[in-house]
């Protein structure tokens, strides 16, 4: 079982350009999440989706958008990248959100550098 896959593994992007980070899970999990991880700040939630067709804002949503057209895919789009969006991005999923067993499964991450 692949679990969660993310693409690309890494990317260098010019400021002002747009980009979509891809995330796919094969566990049929209802909930999916996007985090960014910066040195000293830990993982911060960008957006989440409780189930296909719904999305919500996390702690740091500005400059990012998401969609959840189906259960498996949860792409993250940067409409106009800025250098402060340089980070490592992790996609995660969990069977449900808000349940007592809300263990999250993480993808391998995408390292994004915005110049």
């Amino acid at each position, binding site marked *: 079982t692949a679990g969660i896959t993310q693409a690309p593994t890494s990317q260098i992007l010019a400021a002002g350009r747009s980009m979509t980070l891809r995330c796919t899970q094969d566990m049929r999990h209802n909930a999916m*999440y996007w985090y960014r991880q910066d040195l000293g700040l*830990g993982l911060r939630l960008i957006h989440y989706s409780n189930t296909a067709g719904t999305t919500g804002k996390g702690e740091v949503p500005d400059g990012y958008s998401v969609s959840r057209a189906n259960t498996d895919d949860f792409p993250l789009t940067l409409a106009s990248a800025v250098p402060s969006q340089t980070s490592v991005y992790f996609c*995660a999923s969990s069977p449900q959100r808000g349940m*007592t*067993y*809300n*263990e*999250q499964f993480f993808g391998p991450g995408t390292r994004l550098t915005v110049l």
Partner: protein
Amino acid sequence: SQKIEQNSEALNIQEGKTATLTCNYTNYSPAYLQWYRQDPGRGPVFLLLIRENEKEKRKERLKVTFDTTLKQSLFHITASQPADSATYLCALEDSSYKLIFGSGTRLLVRP
């Protein structure tokens, strides 16, 4: 304000000793707390979950305690091995069901 604090300094211990990592939180009342392991260049991996009514949870060489009065969780690795070297993250669910992560503590186990 709400905060989760983990020691930002790396913990450096000798193989075979017990490693103890601390997670303190303020202004949260979590129903449970989780611990994850993260290796360099990889995503976090879930280790243990402990509920507020559980004082202690064990899994092989791992032990987690949860003191809701002190607002603290301790994560222990007994008989530590160099392969245990990694960053360990604590996480708790806030009142809106979002998982909030600490910044992690790096553990280095010397052979």
